[in-house]
């Protein structure tokens, strides 16, 4: 049987980087094929070639036996290849429905929009990804990252995913609830015989959903195997070339004095009520869990003064601090790694070195002048610690792979050496190997006496990392779980509690 997609000897170079080198890949009709590999291994590069964004420097592609040479995304879409890219590509000022149906807006005579059909189609798509209550006419700006990701997915589900559906890290920003919903859709499409390519750093997802998995390393194919014939540890070994030692849970240092405390904090969009009270001590890693939209991001932003002066009180080292803006927060030794790296974390067109030093300029300046060498040194140092794959400190952040961009954002805050560091989804899109390194690093930071406050949608991550987990549900604290009591069931139960009306558990 001719494979649905077949790549032969594909090569792609960027200045100073060989992104793909002699890639041979066959995707069978109807299979769900996973691509795995470290950050920068070349997964998204394969996808960008399929999507017609880039053209290969070498090799050929075939779709259902026919030569496939897309010159633009238009060609790819015409050929029936639908892609959910790793980074969001939405139109903020347009409505949800318009974004969902943008590839082909329903029209009536004379190019008029068919708004009724648009609403209907959009509703149906929103339904499928669990956003049934979102109005199709709402503009996309103002939606959370997770909701945007779901909209991207729903977009691709139109016409049932075309001939080949490609999903590049679709779950990176989703909590288990949304991910579950997505997996149901994938199963349904599989049952219909749709061919899919699935990229993820979550090995469990790969084993649960995919028939076969191809591992890339440094732009080359390492192996292609049926998932039934391999195992997560083997896969990890193929990806990073060594086994990952089973890690003991990160343990912070001796818990010290109260570093950060908030009282009656009422973040933006918070429900009426007394507000939130909690504290983080030096040497401690405190997690915040919750469903998408629970308001975790808003808690961190409020403390940081990102949306103006917080409503409520913030204490540093037991003393009340007036925070009117992020500058006040950083002056008080508080840092925030934001959730949306593209819009809020990075200056994409500027170099990785510049991005690394952005929150700690005094460390790389002398008398108002930049010390370019110190800046580059910092970038190289953290690239080493975080295993960031970049062609050099001068490479613009926008040219890095998604996971490596995330590492640069992390490097920025590590370099800033804030005493209190808040991290919103710190390992979004980071590969398993690097994740372990990062956990160890965060552990060392805590052991070194920093106070860390971590928001994550990956419960295993929080469970692995934290000393305590606060659970947010609908903007209110549903409870606090100590390390001894950590379990996914317990935490999820609390996370859902706010949505169950009076019968909160």
């Amino acid at each position, binding site marked *: 049987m001719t494979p649905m997609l077949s790549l032969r000897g594909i090569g792609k170079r960027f200045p100073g980087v060989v992104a793909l080198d002699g890639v041979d890949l066959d995707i069978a009709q109807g299979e769900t094929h996973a691509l795995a590999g470290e950050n920068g291994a070349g997964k998204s590069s394969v996808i960008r070639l399929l999507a017609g*964004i880039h053209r290969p420097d070498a090799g050929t592609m075939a779709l259902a036996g026919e030569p496939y040479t897309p010159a633009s995304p238009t060609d790819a879409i015409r050929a029936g290849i639908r892609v959910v890219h790793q980074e969001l590509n939405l139109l903020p000022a347009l409505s949800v429905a318009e974004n969902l149906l943008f590839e082909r807006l329903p029209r009536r005579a004379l190019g008029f929009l068919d708004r009724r059909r648009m609403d209907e189609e959009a509703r149906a798509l929103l339904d499928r990804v669990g956003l049934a209550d979102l109005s199709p006419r709402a503009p996309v700006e103002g939606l959370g990252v997770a909701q945007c990701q779901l909209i991207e997915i729903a977009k691709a589900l139109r016409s049932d995913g075309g001939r080949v559906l490609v999903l590049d890290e679709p779950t990176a920003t989703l909590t288990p609830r949304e991910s579950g919903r997505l997996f149901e859709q994938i199963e349904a499409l599989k049952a219909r015989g749709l061919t899919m390519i699935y990229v993820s750093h979550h090995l469990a997802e790969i084993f649960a959903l995919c028939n076969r998995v191809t591992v890339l390393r440094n732009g080359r194919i390492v192996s292609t195997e049926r998932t039934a014939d391999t195992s997560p540890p083997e896969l990890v070994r193929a990806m990073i070339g060594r086994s990952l030692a089973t890690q003991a849970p990160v343990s912070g240092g001796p818990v010290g004095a109260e570093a950060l405390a908030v009282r009656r904090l009422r973040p933006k969009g918070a429900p009426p009520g007394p507000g939130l009270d909690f504290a983080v001590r030096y040497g401690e890693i405190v997690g915040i869990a919750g469903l998408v939209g629970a308001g975790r991001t808003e808690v961190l932003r409020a403390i940081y003064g990102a949306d103006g002066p917080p409503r409520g009180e913030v204490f540093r080292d037991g003393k009340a601090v007036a925070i009117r803006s992020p500058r006040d927060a950083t002056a008080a030794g508080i840092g925030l790694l934001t959730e949306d790296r593209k819009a809020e974390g990075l200056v994409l067109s500027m170099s990785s070195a510049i991005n690394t030093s952005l929150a700690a300029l005094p460390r790389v300046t002398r008398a108002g002048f930049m010390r370019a060498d110190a800046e580059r040194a910092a970038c190289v140092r953290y690239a080493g610690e975080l295993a960031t794959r970049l062609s050099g400190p001068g490479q613009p952040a926008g040219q890095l792979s998604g996971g490596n961009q995330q590492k640069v954002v992390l490097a920025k805050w590590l370099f800033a050496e804030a005493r209190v560091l808040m991290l919103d989804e710190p390992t979004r899109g980071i590969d398993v190997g690097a994740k372990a390194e990062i956990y160890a690093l965060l552990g060392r930071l805590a052991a070194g006496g920093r106070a860390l406050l971590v928001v994550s949608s990956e419960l295993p991550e929080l469970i692995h990392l934290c000393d305590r987990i606060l659970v947010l549900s609908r903007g209110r604290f549903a409870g606090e779980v100590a390390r001894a009591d950590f379990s996914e069931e317990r935490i999820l139960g609390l996370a859902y509690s706010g949505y169950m009306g009076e019968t909160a558990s």
Partner: protein
Amino acid sequence: MSAATPDTALPLRFRRSRLLLRDAGIGVALLALVAFFALAAPDFLSGTNMSNILTQITINLILATGMTFAILIGGIDLSVGAVMALCAVVAGTVMKLDALPEVVAVGLGIAASLGVGIAAGALNGFVSAFWGVPSFIVTLGMLNVARGLALEVTNARTIYDFPDSFIAFGTASLFGLPVMFLLALALLALGWVVLTRTVFGRMIYAIGNNEEAVRLSGHRPFDTKVLAFAVTGACVGIAAIVYVTRLSIANPILGVGFELNAIAAVIIGGTSLSGGRGSLVGTLLGAIIIGVLGNGLILMGVTDFIRQIITGLVIILAVVLDSYRARLSRSLG
């Protein structure tokens, strides 16, 4: 549970009202201005004066309508004033062709004006989209080319003495309102429908928002860009006709600096200079603010230089006021 996204309904309602408020913001500035002049200049509210203001803003309104298309798609058109002069002198030349019967000559003249405007606009769009160069520079070049051409074809002379039937339109009224203003309003309404209700309109906003995303969705922004600039050009062609019928002359140096006025109306109206956000309702309000300001200060008897100073201050004040409105609606939302 299962109520997936439980509290979206609320913010949505907020957002709707925010949109209304958005246009209202600059409207409040306008109301304040009108109220002030009503008190300070007794004749300001009179019917004739209202009608005068509408006549005075007509050309800027038409140009600003077209400019809104160029700005929304992420560009700008600096050539509108110069192209308008070219349209006017070409139309004027055609209309004065003795060989043709009057009606035909006038019809052809109007068509020529539209044709020149559309061609210049499409060329602006083509060059900037095809080579991916900033429309700021392309239209700056076009400004010089069009002005030079207008001067060259007329040899710097004023064309005058047009058919009376044609000139009559310029001062005609309907329901007590200047016909030319009604035309401008109709054009604006048409533009509004196009921008908000058609695929083309959505495409303009989309490209202004994130051109890359549009490309990834399988569209070719090129066509839409050329078309959007052609629309700007068409409006310029119409404005030129309105100019000629109103002032019954066509000369190659008319319209100098009109681009700035048109851009100002668009930006005061809340459209973002970087594209993708804004509306023609805002543009209408912006154009009226500029018009009212010019008129009211003269009625008050403010001297020229002071008038210029106050005009500058009020323009700044209007957008500052508007920012408070935005902040207010944000804190509500």
